[in-house]
């Protein structure tokens, strides 16, 4: 830990107890019975993952046909921090006051948000955290914003149902949550949803599509066919700020300039 020079060069290695030692811990199961060969197979996998030396420190049979392993070892891989492209927030974080102001000036009516969990997913805690007044992480949810009308459809909404409500409500933005990821359910459902909206609306007229859930990758919006992906730990404020920034860029720019004062106020 002695102030390693590496971070400056942007090149780092995993840290066990000495700078640069490259140590990692690994566990997995192989579908083979436990014996010396199995331990060798575990070491082989670890080496393929770049561990050298690879110490198989634990091997436990699970039934007659599987074996669980814990492996410790040193990876040769270097991590180039400078090559990590992080998905930076490209919009100013606004207070509810500022969001309301932007909408009042920019839209002259309440902004309409329709949200829910699509497909068979019934995990509403996440979307509720964004929409319900109660909010999340100390921030109030969108229902709290005077200038935002929230229509929360709740759990297991079918895609057609969602599209129909979005139209009926003249939604400016549609917020969808997907938590169950087994067999890529979240990916498939989201693509189905975005396709349905492309179908239902004339090009460029469809509402802003926002998807969220703990296991999404923020960089995926393009191939999911949505405008934005939010993931672990999102707060309502981020979502509100994003929506107005996208729908009312000029007015946001306006309030955003005076941001520092407002916030310190």
């Amino acid at each position: 830990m002695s102030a390693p020079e590496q971070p400056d060069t942007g090149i780092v290695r995993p840290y066990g107890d000495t700078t640069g030692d490259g140590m990692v811990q690994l566990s997995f199961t192989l579908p083979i019975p436990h014996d010396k060969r199995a331990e060798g197979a575990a070491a082989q996998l670890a080496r393929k993952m770049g561990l050298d030396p690879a110490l198989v420190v634990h091997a436990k049979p699970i039934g007659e046909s599987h074996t669980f392993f814990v492996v410790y070892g040193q990876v040769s891989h270097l991590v180039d921090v400078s090559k990590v492209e992080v998905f930076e927030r490209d919009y100013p974080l606004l207070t509810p006051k500022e969001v309301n102001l932007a909408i009042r000036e920019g839209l002259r009516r309440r902004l309409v948000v329709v949200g829910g969990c699509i497909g068979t997913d019934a995990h509403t805690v996440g979307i509720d955290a964004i929409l319900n007044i109660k909010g999340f992480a100390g921030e109030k949810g969108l229902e709290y914003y005077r200038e935002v009308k929230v229509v929360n459809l709740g759990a297991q909404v079918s895609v057609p149902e969602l599209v129909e409500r979005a139209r009926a409500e003249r939604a400016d933005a549609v917020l969808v949550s997907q938590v169950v990821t087994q067999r890529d359910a979240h990916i498939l459902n989201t693509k189905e949803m975005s396709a349905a909206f492309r179908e239902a609306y004339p090009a460029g007229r469809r509402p802003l599509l926002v998807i969220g859930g703990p296991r999404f990758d923020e960089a995926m919006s393009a191939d999911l066919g949505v405008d934005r992906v939010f993931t672990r730990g999102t707060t309502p404020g981020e979502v509100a700020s994003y929506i107005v920034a996208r729908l009312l860029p000029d007015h946001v720019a306006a309030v955003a300039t005076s941001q520092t004062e407002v916030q310190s106020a």
Partner: protein
Amino acid sequence: MDRVIDPVMDKPASKLDLDPAAVRTARTLAQAAGRPIVDLARQHTTVSVERATLRLGGLAGADTDGIPWVNRLLDAVRGDVGLEHGTALPVWDALVRGEADDLAALAERASSGSVRFRLPEGAAAGRARSAARTSVGAGIRRMEERRRERERLIERLGDAPRQPWIYLIVATGDIYEDIPQAQAAAREGADVIAVIRSTGQSLLDYVPEGATREGFAGTYATQENFRLMRAALDQTSAELGRYVRLTNYASGLCMPEMAALAGIERVDMMLNDSMYGILFRDINPIRTFVDQRFSRQIHARAGIIINTGEDNYLTTADAVEAAHTVTVSQLLNEYFAKEAGLENWQLGLGHAFEIDPAVPDSFRMELAHALLARQLFPDAPLKWMPPTRHMTGDVFKGYLLDGFFNLAGALTGQGILLVGMMTEAVVTPWLSDRDLALQNVRYVLDAAGRLGEDFHPAPDGFIAQRARQVLAEAIELLEKIHSHEGQAGLLEAIGDGTFGLMRRPADRGKGLDGVALKADGYYNPAIEMLDASAEENNQ
């Protein structure tokens, strides 16, 4: 029949001395709240109740599109004569009239529109009634045989070695992956295997058919999957010399049919809550209460242990603030269960270790809550659920938390311990997660399982006081429900968001169109027979 209760369980009950008067008040209020709901349930029937009756009558299978024959037949009958008189009279009348040799044939002809159903009268009605009674009676006897078979197997092979029973989940979505995983888990020490259902099945208004391999985050509950898994576990039970129980779900829109299929295939436990479907699946309240009463009567007859779903409240509400809602739900579940003829040993009332671990004294508070349930329901095999919402990607911390959950279960004499998984926040359990989890349970039970001997909450200490407080808050809530105007205060309460802040009005929600007010002359041989036994029980 209190087979499953052993000293380990009762002991802890004596550990809190609650005011018996308060306990009595709580029960009386629960009864007052539940009684009108039972009346309501008796006044209605549902498509699923009727389909379950047809299944008991011997109708199984599905058409080429996978639509079960019971749905096909019911829809035809409903089209001709409506639902309000029940399906028994029109269906067996048609058989008596010789429209077909058996239900299967009848269903097939009906769905091709070549049968017209009628409401038989007079003698015809009598014939239809007795024909129906005969075949449905056979179905009920079949369940009774399976029950006796279970009892014999337990006699012969032996039961779970100790309490709490170790309850493990498999959830691959593929029954053929589930089976060997379940067998491996049993070999590693699981006493109960639960096959988690695919997401969304609860909202299907039919029961899928056959062996399935493509569930999402769970495996479809089908008669064939029940059969396959039960057969596999029978084999493993024989190999291990102890009877390994199987759990599934009597929940969602097909609750009654699930119960019947479970009875027929000797599933041993069913998740079956009186309000879960309403609150967490937005299923119409009346639909739920009607389906629930029928399914519980089936469970009573089939000797199935129910598991209620109070744990779910704590996944959306805070486990400290909402502790009393768990108690209220347990009391309601107890009332509805007893009314339906279930005995104490069949009541796997749920609760969970869901307090934020960052809360000071969180572990002692968990003990208080667990002991409260233990003492309120001394003869019920409580279902103790592991931490879930405060589990994170830190699998090491999660593994530790599960260890303390196991310890709380042992210290407070829980009957059924649902084994927690360190990957709770990440994936549905891996094979290795389950193996590690069982190792965790085994260590805690073997090393500290008898620590109860030395665990004596100080009479006015933190634990005793917390337990009293929760009971008091529960009574308050029950009074609030009671004070609701309208003959069924509980419905109103559910309607205006008393539970988990979710408003579920009685005239909304999924599956309402499958509910009918019974007409006079409604006849259902299954209800006839089940009510009879239930009455006996409640004498």
